[in-house]
């Protein structure tokens, strides 16, 4: 009896260690390239070799002076902000529809709403390009915004929907019951309740749009975004300024994702628990 217990505890410990090791490996493979890239962005040597040369800001100064990079950064930021606002708005509406209404075909509605991220990016990008060309609107900044909004809205919806699921449906009815019109209840109850999720969705969709390459590459035309310009520089030559841009993109994205996570986890006001 004792022996079996002992063995079982030992087996648990071994499994725990194996899982921890697995987790460490996952993190290692994800972060090593990123960290390497950050380190080499401060390295004075032209080629990424070890031993490292001296510390330098040179590559950052190069991209700072590059008008093309500035132009791309501006495009990326405009696209990311517009996309995040549009995608969050659409995501909120979709999630609220799901929360509030029961209707025939609701499941198909949800599947359709969540579909875009499951389509391979290349196919989505090609389809967008073909469609925009047919309409004669390809290669404009706002075509990138439309394409990114399609891609990002499901993320926003998923985040906001999770928060709405925690809302007591009586809250909204209670607001009507106390004299709030449907709009007033939306403004005073639903939006404040989901505020943390809305901020989270804004950050998340902004990060996705800022990082996105494939769709942007197909539909951007002359309005290159940052990931597109990175590819162009890479195709030209091996140049450590890529590491500098990469670091900039990584820091921006990870900041947005962390903010999104914080708002999502903290979910500021807690529901009172009903006993």
């Amino acid at each position: 009896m004792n022996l079996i217990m002992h063995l079982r505890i030992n087996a648990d410990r071994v499994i725990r260690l194996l899982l921890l090791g697995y987790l460490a490996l996952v993190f290692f493979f994800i972060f090593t390239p990123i960290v390497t890239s950050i380190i080499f962005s401060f390295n004075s040597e032209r080629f990424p070799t070890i031993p490292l040369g001296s510390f330098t800001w040179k590559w950052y100064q190069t991209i700072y002076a590059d008008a093309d990079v500035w132009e791309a950064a501006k495009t990326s930021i405009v696209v990311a902000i517009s996309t995040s606002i549009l995608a969050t708005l659409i995501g909120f509406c979709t999630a609220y529809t799901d929360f509030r209404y029961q209707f025939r075909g609701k499941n198909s509605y949800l599947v359709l709403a969540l579909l875009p991220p499951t389509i391979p990016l290349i196919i989505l990008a090609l389809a967008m390009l073909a469609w925009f060309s047919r309409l004669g609107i390809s290669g404009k900044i706002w075509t990138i915004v439309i394409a990114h909004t399609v891609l990002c809205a499901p993320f926003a919806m998923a985040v906001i929907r999770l928060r709405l699921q925690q809302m007591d449906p009586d809250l909204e009815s209670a607001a009507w019951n106390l004299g709030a019109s449907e709009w007033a209840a939306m403004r005073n109850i639903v939006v404040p309740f989901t505020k943390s999720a809305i901020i989270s969705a804004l950050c998340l969709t902004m990060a996705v749009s800022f990082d996105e390459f494939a769709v942007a590459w197909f539909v951007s035309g002359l309005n290159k975004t940052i990931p597109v310009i990175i590819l162009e520089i890479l195709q030209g030559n091996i140049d450590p300024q890529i590491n500098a841009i990469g670091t900039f993109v990584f820091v921006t994205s990870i900041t947005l994702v962390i903010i999104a996570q914080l708002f999502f986890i903290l979910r500021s006001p807690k529901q009172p628990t009903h006993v």
Partner: protein
Amino acid sequence: MSEPQIVFENVIKRFGDTVAVDKMNFSIEQGEFLTIMGSSGCGKTTTLRMLAGLETPSEGEIRLAGKRINEIKPSDRNTPLVWQSLALFPFLNVVENVEFGLKMRSIQSHDRKQRAMKWLERMEISEFANRPVAQLSGGQRQRVALARALVTEPPVLLLDEPLSALDANLVVRMQGVLSRLQKELGITFVYVTHSQSEAFAMADRVVIMSQGLIEQIGTPKQVFREPATRFVAEFVGSNNILTGIISKIENRKLHVDTEIGLVIADQSGHDDLATGNPVDIVISADRLNLYSLDSPDEADSSSNKYRCKLVSEEFIGAIVTLLVETENGTELKIQKQQKDLDKDLSNVNLETGQQLWVSWPGESVYIVPAKQSAKFVSPNSPTCPPTFSTG
């Protein structure tokens, strides 16, 4: 002649194929404390939600102060509801929760704060005004919910099982608070509950519902002593219910053949019954008496007397609940004050299996004609006379 404050006229509510409320007709007087009681799914909450405008009747008409309100939006009604879940707004503090109804009516910030604080004081929770609601206890949250609902000074307050989340002691305290509040404000309370004790403790009248239908409307005493249907008799509990057929009517006494033998009951109030009619017989558990076998006959002159054996005995405070079994195996429930029981049994100690007499006087038997439909009782309306003689 003015109409009662709230009138339900042939109201039907369907959800898809299911009928939640079926042909409901009743009225509520201004200032009345009306309780709607029934088991879950009987349509009581649907009825309340229709009053609040959160559900629209499928058919029929609901009138408030003489005006049809079927199509009026919930926000335009001023029929605040105290929710079972309380539904306090978690991201607002106590005073902001209470102010909400005033804010929605575009009342100036200073004014609404003052009115909200007045209600917090009245509910004795003003010291928590700036706390988030999550930090309050169950009873305090209950008071916030009440203050929030009452701050607009509505003509009617709706309450949907508001005490169901509280522990037993607190329930009794809050019952007192609610009763007093209702009397002081003089407004109508419509209170939905499944708890008999809550209903009986506070209500002027009780509506008992089952499967979307009204089984009985009456004062708590009427519902308790004179159940209109077998369902009501079973629902209010502590009743013994026997089924039988009238075999003879003699000197205004009904002779009924039941599973325990012949039972004799007064005919008063049942002039329409005839020999051969099936009836249910209801005897409240506190009306039954127990005597030991050797007690002298003159100790008990009741017309109904049966030999039985004691099955179980249970004490709750000063009240004893006994189960006895008659000779043909029917169980009867008896509830007595301990001191009355001691007197009847001349202080003999009871043992399980012991043979005894169980008896009850003919006037304590209440007759329910079998399959009787619901009756409409309104205290003030002359068009709807009370169905039962009281007393």
